[in-house]
C-alpha cells in the first residue's frame, strides 16, 4: 500500500465567503443565511461588506448539515439544537479550565 506524508494546515487560518461555506458544508446558501441571522453561525468581524466565515462557522455549519440530515430537523429545530450544542461546548470548556486549576486531578 502506498504511504504518503501529508502536511496539514490549521483549520483556524481560513476564511471563506457564504457561497464557499455553502459549498464546503453542502447546505443551501438560503438556509445558511437564516442560520447566520439567527445568530447560530457567526461571521468573522470585518470591515468588508460581504461577510467572511472562519473555522468556528465552518465547524458549526458542518454540524448543522449532519443534524439536519440525521435527525430530519426543520430550520427552527436546527437553530435550537445548534444553540444548545454551543452552550454545552462552552460549559465543557469552562469545566476543563476549572479542572485544570483544581489540585489533585490529572485529566486534561
Amino acid at each position: 500500500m502506498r504511504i504518503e506524508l501529508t502536511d496539514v494546515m490549521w483549520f483556524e487560518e481560513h476564511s471563506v465567503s457564504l457561497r464557499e461555506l455553502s459549498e464546503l458544508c453542502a447546505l443551501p446558501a438560503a438556509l445558511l443565511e437564516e442560520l447566520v441571522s439567527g445568530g447560530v453561525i457567526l461571521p468573522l468581524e470585518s470591515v468588508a461588506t460581504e461577510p467572511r466565515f472562519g473555522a468556528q462557522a465552518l465547524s458549526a455549519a458542518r454540524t448543522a448539515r449532519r443534524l439536519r440530515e440525521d435527525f430530519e430537523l426543520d430550520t427552527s429545530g436546527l437553530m435550537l439544537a445548534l444553540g444548545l450544542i454551543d452552550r454545552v461546548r462552552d460549559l465543557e470548556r469552562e469545566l476543563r479550565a476549572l479542572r485544570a486549576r483544581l489540585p489533585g486531578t490529572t485529566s486534561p
Partner: protein
Amino acid sequence: MKYKDYYATLGVERGASEDAIKKAYRRLAHKYHPDVSKEADAEERFKEVAEAYQTLKDPEKRAAYDQLGTHSAGQDFQPPPDWQRQWQPSQEEAFSAEDLDLSALFEHLRAGRGARGGERMVMAGQDYEVAVPVSIEQAYSGTQIDLDLNMPEYDAQGRLHRTPHAFKARIPKGATDGQRLRVPGKGGKGINGGRNGDLYLNISLLPHPYYRANGHDLYLDLPLSAWEAVLGTSVEVPTPGGSVRLKVPPGTQAARQLRLPGRGLPKPKGGQGDLYAVVQIVVPSVVNDRERALYQQLSDVSAYDPRAHFVREGSHAN
C-alpha cells in the same frame, strides 16, 4: 461480501412497520449521534445505524434487501442470481468483488436509477472527520501520526468499494485540545470532476500523569513540605521542554500558583503558553521519634494560629 443484519442493527423485527423503523432509528440516533453523544464508540455505532436506516426507510431498497435472504451478520454471501437482474438491470457486470460493501448494493440502486438518462452527476467527494488523540509531549514538539481510513470510493465502473487509505500526517507543534486541522483534498474522491473532499482532524489531548492543559497553559501540582513552604526553597520542576529550577518564596501558601512564563504549550502562530505550578502542602504520614519531638517542640514554641479568622463563638457558648 459480508452480510449485515440491518434489522438487528436497529433492534427491530424483520416485519417492522415503517413507523417502527423510524422510531428505532431516532432513538439510536439520539444515543449515538457523534454531535450529541458521549458514548465512547458513538461514531462507529452511528455509522452502522445510519447505514441500516438508509436502506430500510426506502420501501424499494428495503424490498431489495429483504430478497437477499436471511444470513447471520458477518457471514459471507452472494446475492441470489436473479437479484441483480431484478434490481440492477443497468449494471452490466455481475458483482464478484470480494471487497464490495453491502451498502454499495443499495447505493447502486439509487445511482443506477439516477444514471439511466446517461447523465453523469458531478459530485464533490465526502468530507471526513477523524479524532486524533495526542500526548502533551507530542503537542509540545509536533508529531507525525499514522492514519488508516476506510473510505468509500467509486471504481471505473461506478461501483462503490471501501478502500483502505493509509497515510502519515504531520501535526505541527501548537495543537491543543479541541483544535482542528484541515487536510485539503484528502477526503473522498470527487465524482465526474467534482472536487475531492477534505479531511478534518479533531485534536484531543490525552490525560497526562502530572500536567493538566487549559488551552496552551499547563497546570502542575507542586507538593511542598511544610518547612519548604515556610522557609522558601528552590525546587526542580518538570516542564515539557525539560526540567527547570523554580524559586519558592518563604511563606508560600497552599493553592498559590507559581507561574513559569512561556513554559506551557507552543501556540501555532508563535508564542508559548505558561506553566502554573499549583502549591500543595503535604505532610509525612509517618514520622520517627526525633521528628515527632521536633514537631512537638515547634508546637510548644509557635504562637501561630491558622484559624485566627474564625469568629470565636465557642467562648460564649462555654
